[in-house]
């Protein structure tokens, strides 16, 4: 296995490992409210966690997976190809607004942007490899305040080179980019395919729900995580469909939604007695 492939695996592993700090552990993405409202009751097969996960997969998750795959596809450039990087700028901004349009809940948009901002900051500060040559120029403007980044002593887009250039560009163009875009963009920069980016997205979403359920319902963790392989066929279809959109125009990206989850997210945000941030 060559060094590039190893790095791409490492990128997937790191962004899907709950121990990498992204702020994700404090979000249940509506699950806490679904449990409070009685929409998830482990003893009732019609209100099971498996059912909740299936609905999530076929709506919110596939929509995000397609965004991640699209971002991965459009971030995969040859190292040091500056003209290609410049062309990406408009596409990355375009995807940002397409994601907004596909995220009906204002709270979901807010959460996605705050998690995305945290991830992009941590990646740009923390991910330095021999193939990211611009390490010196990027650390200064990114810390400590991302919004101050825009147009600051960065040296402009022309100053960018190296593998993470599209991610750098995204940080410059969008103060708090969406999580799906940041994840896909980073993975694409490291040579991960759109299919892998979509799969990584599905895994991340499912694990967020499962680990929140383990805490909130006191479920047996082995059987809770066992739901993932049991949903394998659906996950596989979702990944295939999502990655299909990677090279299509952004306007064609899917926009399935789960209105109950959206309503629950909004309601949850107004609660004072909550354990999770979403």
């Amino acid at each position: 296995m060559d060094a590039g492939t190893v790095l791409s695996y490492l990128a997937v592993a790191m962004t899907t490992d709950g121990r990498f700090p992204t702020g994700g552990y404090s979000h249940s993405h509506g699950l806490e409210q679904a449990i409070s409202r009685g929409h998830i009751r482990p003893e009732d097969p019609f209100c099971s966690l498996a059912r909740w996960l299936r609905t999530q997969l076929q709506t919110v998750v596939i929509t995000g997976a397609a965004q991640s795959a699209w971002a991965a596809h459009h971030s995969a450039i040859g190292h040091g190809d500056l003209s290609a990087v410049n062309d990406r700028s408009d596409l990355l901004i375009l995807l940002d607004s397409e994601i907004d349009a596909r995220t009906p809940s204002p709270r979901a948009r807010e959460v996605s942007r705050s998690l995305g901002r945290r991830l992009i900051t941590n990646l740009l500060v923390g991910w330095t490899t021999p193939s990211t040559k611009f390490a010196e120029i990027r650390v200064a403007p990114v810390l400590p305040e991302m919004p101050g980044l825009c147009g600051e002593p960065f040296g402009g887009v022309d100053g960018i080179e190296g593998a993470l250039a599209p991610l750098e560009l995204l940080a410059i163009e969008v103060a708090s980019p969406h999580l799906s875009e940041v994840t896909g963009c980073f993975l694409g920069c490291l040579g991960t395919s759109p299919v892998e980016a979509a799969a990584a997205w599905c895994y991340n979403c499912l694990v967020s729900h499962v680990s929140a359920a383990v805490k909130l319902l006191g479920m047996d963790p082995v059987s809770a995580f066992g739901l993932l392989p049991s949903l394998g066929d659906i996950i596989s279809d979702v990944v295939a469909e999502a990655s299909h959109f990677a090279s299509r125009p952004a306007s064609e990206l899917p926009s399935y939604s789960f209105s109950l989850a959206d309503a629950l997210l909004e309601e949850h945000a107004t609660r004072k007695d909550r354990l999770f941030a979403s």
Partner: protein
Amino acid sequence: MHLEIPQGGSRSPSSIETDSLPVKIGIGGPVGSGKTALVAELCRSLSGRINLGVVTNDIYTTEDAEFLKRQGVLSDDRIVAVQTGCCPHTAIRDDISDNQAAVESLVRAHEGLELVIIESGGDNLTATFSAGLVDKQIFVVDVAGGDKVPRKGGPGITRSDLLVINKVDLATLVGADLAVMERDAWEIRQGAPVVLISLRTDEGVIGVVNWVSALVEGARQMLKIA
């Protein structure tokens, strides 16, 4: 700079200096040991002379933040609450993202901020703050938990920069021997500072107030020199 701690030992001066503002101080400790009461007291004593803000990490509800707001020790916009998704120690140690974001939001909103106090959700004796989040940490235990607590050790007790043993007013009621607690704490902390206080009677509290204000003063001086 050398700090005068009324009780307990002292560390080498370099270990109690920070050179950037705001100084970030974490306050951790078991549930109900008096963390919020201490934060309120620090705000009351220091807000007149130090530009400060507070981040709370309630486990459930925004009780601590609401309590501080009700006390009127600080304007509401200087108190930010963070949710910790059932993992109070994760929020201060393993994944400090949300707390960092809260600190950043305070820094953005209040120019010249000099001190941010971060109260952890009540946790166990192993909970410590990440160096990425705070400059110094205070661990608060109480007398009501029994005089064995300091002896039990754990990173919170052994590694904190200041150990506070609170509720000394209850010692006789719960049959806790303060001398034993102080001696054990000294021993296990190898001379690092320990203060015994009561937030009910105010006994010893000035020691913590002075410790915190000396840190901020130290950082102010360092910045002047730089």
